[in-house]
């Protein structure tokens, strides 16, 4: 588990109403004053459901038509294409439906360490036999006694080999002796998935019939299920009959796969019904299993991770099978409410470009927080009761200048509220222009100091701290609460969480239909709740070294001290 990093900033997606607030604060009408009722109901980051609507900016998309951020919960995903991550071949969706969601070419991953296996020649001069070799942990298919005659169509060869091994081991079991069972043969009967399904008396049925009988039994079972399911209007009956049609129509193919590993790969992976097949398997004599595990020792058994990715849940390392590479998908994303496409990757597998990608970072103003005096504030050790000063920077991604209004409740929500004070809640942020405009533009040449807004940094009330081309910084003061020591506190209570409403108003060129002949500007507005997780409150007051001193922006001494620490960079620029 990752330790939380402070400070971190999350943005609330309003997709699910009544999360952390009574009424959604979004409104497209550009009322200039904030509704007093609205103001009273600040976003509560400590509400239990808030966790599910807070996302880092990077995870959010933006729908231009709804003028709203879109979180992973409020987008619809559509699969553009399936491909194998190993050979980068696109797999048609019909093949995925019929053959399963694994690569049917030569792509396998190591059952031990999950690295990619490569087909390697073992003979002289790159001739066969060929093996699948893991270049990381040196596992090879020879460990389980399998090699291949030719370096292509490994999947088919592997299926044949497993079937053959399965048959031979089952045949040898018709006269089972304890010695032959305990002998550490690479392809133990337990390993072959098909024999796993053997009824308790293995000699009763030849191996081929075992599968056949099993199939017949399952078919009867699903027929029964279907009859039951068709009685009610539960939607499963349709999928059930489709499933049965799939397997009874080409049971020949099913038989050709024969042994368990691959067939289960093909079926059980995406058909949850087939998981039942595994539950129904009859485990052979327990004593044999125990004996085998005893012989193999701890190091001969599979780890949990190794076991769960295999379809036949092997107990011993000998029974592991190479894993066919899982296919991956490229997906496009749509807005759930207006169905417009937000993300559309190029359908070519090799390309990582996107045709459409509307990320929130290029639409909504981004906020970031830093310490004004980095010696005075320790994010993981905030001193209760003393004033901490932070710099809140708002960056504008748009090509128009925006007016920002920041709003925050004076006391943060929660049982132990911190006091928050934004020195300058209303300010302007410049447009995102060319990086060189600032340095080479006419205004910059004429009066660089004014243009840059440098040298102010007074920290006075209602003035900004600093600003640049498309960003503005204001001072934020936070007084963390005193936490009672005798009360059992939740971990959440130690974290200062500040909800801030960021509202931006700007004028943009009117887009869409009526662009011809009309040079209009329209007023646009966007607002969102963000939550600053500023840091942890110190366990005990004064537990930290004496380096923390309470500061106030109004006192001239600390203001100049702060200027000293952050000043030199700017001075050297001048």
């Amino acid at each position: 588990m990752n330790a939380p990093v402070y400070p971190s900033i999350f943005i609330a997606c309003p997709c699910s109403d009544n999360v952390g607030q009574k009424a959604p604060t979004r409104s497209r009408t550009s009322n200039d004053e904030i509704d007093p009722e609205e103001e009273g109901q600040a976003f509560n980051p400590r509400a239990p459901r808030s966790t599910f609507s807070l996302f880092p900016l990077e995870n959010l998309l933006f729908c231009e038509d709804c003028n709203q951020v879109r979180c992973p919960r409020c987008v619809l995903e559509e699969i553009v294409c399936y491909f194998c991550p190993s050979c980068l071949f696109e797999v048609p969706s019909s093949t995925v439906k019929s053959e399963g969601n694994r690569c049917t070419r030569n792509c396998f991953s190591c059952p031990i360490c999950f690295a990619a296996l490569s087909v390697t020649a073992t003979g002289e001069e790159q001739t066969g036999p060929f093996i699948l070799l893991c270049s990381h942990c040196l596992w090879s298919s020879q460990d389980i006694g399998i090699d291949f005659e030719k370096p292509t169509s490994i999947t088919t060869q592997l299926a044949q080999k497993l079937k053959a091994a399965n048959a031979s081991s089952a045949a040898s079991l018709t006269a089972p002796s304890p010695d032959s069972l305990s002998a550490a043969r690479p392809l133990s009967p337990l390993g072959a998935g098909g024999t796993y399904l053997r009824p308790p008396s293995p000699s009763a049925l030849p191996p081929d019939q075992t599968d056949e009988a099993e199939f017949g039994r399952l078919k009867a079972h699903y027929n029964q299920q279907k009859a039951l399911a068709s009685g009610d209007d539960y939607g499963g009956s349709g999928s059930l009959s489709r499933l049965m049609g799939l397997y009874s129509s080409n049971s020949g193919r099913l038989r050709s796969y024969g042994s368990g590993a691959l067939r289960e790969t093909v079926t059980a992976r995406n058909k949850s019904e087939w998981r039942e097949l595994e539950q129904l398997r009859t485990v052979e004599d327990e004593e044999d299993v125990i004996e085998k595990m005893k012989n193999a020792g701890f190091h001969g058994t599979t780890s949990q991770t190794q076991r769960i990715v295999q379809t036949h849940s092997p107990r011993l390392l000998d029974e592991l099978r190479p894993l066919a590479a899982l296919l991956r998908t490229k997906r496009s994303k749509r807005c759930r409410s207006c169905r417009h496409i937000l993300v559309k990757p190029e359908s070519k597998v090799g390309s990582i470009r996107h045709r459409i990608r509307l990320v929130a970072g290029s639409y909504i103003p981004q906020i970031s927080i830093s310490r004004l005096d980095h010696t005075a504030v320790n994010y993981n050790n905030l001193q209760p009761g003393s004033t901490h000063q932070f710099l809140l920077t708002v960056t504008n991604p748009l090509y128009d200048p925006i007016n920002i209004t920041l709003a925050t409740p004076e006391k943060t929500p929660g049982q132990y509220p911190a006091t928050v004070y934004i020195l300058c809640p209303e300010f302007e942020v410049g447009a995102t222009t060319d990086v060189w405009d600032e340095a080479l533009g006419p205004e910059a040449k004429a009066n660089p100091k004014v243009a840059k807004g440098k040298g102010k940094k007074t920290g006075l009330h209602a003035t900004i701290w600093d600003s640049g081309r498309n960003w503005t910084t204001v001072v934020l003061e936070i007084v963390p609460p005193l936490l009672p020591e005798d009360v059992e506190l939740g971990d959440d209570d130690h974290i200062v969480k500040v909800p801030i409403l960021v509202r931006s108003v700007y004028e943009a060129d009117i887009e869409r239909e009526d662009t011809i002949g009309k040079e209009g500007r329209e007023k646009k507005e966007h607002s969102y709740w963000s939550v600053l997780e500023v840091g942890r409150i110190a366990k005990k007051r004064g537990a930290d070294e004496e380096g923390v001193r309470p500061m106030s922006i109004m006192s001239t001494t600390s203001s100049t001290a702060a200027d000293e620490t952050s000043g030199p960079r700017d001075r050297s620029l001048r």
Partner: protein
Amino acid sequence: MAPKSRLSESAAARPPAILSPTILISDVAQLTGTHLIRVGNHTAVHPRCRINSSAGPITIGDYCILNERTQIIAPDERGIVLENYVVVETNAVVEAQRVGEGSVIEVGAKIGKGAVVGKNCKFTPLTTVADGEVVEDDTVVWGFGSRRKDMSGSKEARRKLVERQVEGLKAVIPSNRAKFMS
């Protein structure tokens, strides 16, 4: 750590070295120490590879590859022996007493002081072997200290690969054997 200046390096006494005429050694490799360093035929020593024989003699076999920034440090007076076909990858630290034939020590792996490594072992990136540990033949150390026996039978193929790699390196790395012969 700051790199040593070329001047001080040349001023310091070079360790006695017996280098095969077929060796491939970059002139920015560092051979330091006081004990004998012996390097076998067709071994490639990359630039910035550091071989330190301060505590004991170092013997390196045939067809070994010592990559950039590797450190081969003799742990004590018994010295260190790398047998033939040993590949030490970038940033690995080897302080073993002996590394068996055909072993591969991958990027950033660390072999503790006085460890004895068997033949055809493989240490995957960033794995460590404790001081004085004995690693059996054909062991693969991977992941978070997991071990397994290599049964792939790819030893010969790997050796051939190393030979070919050395041949390839000869075309790439300019060798300056004379610099280290004193």
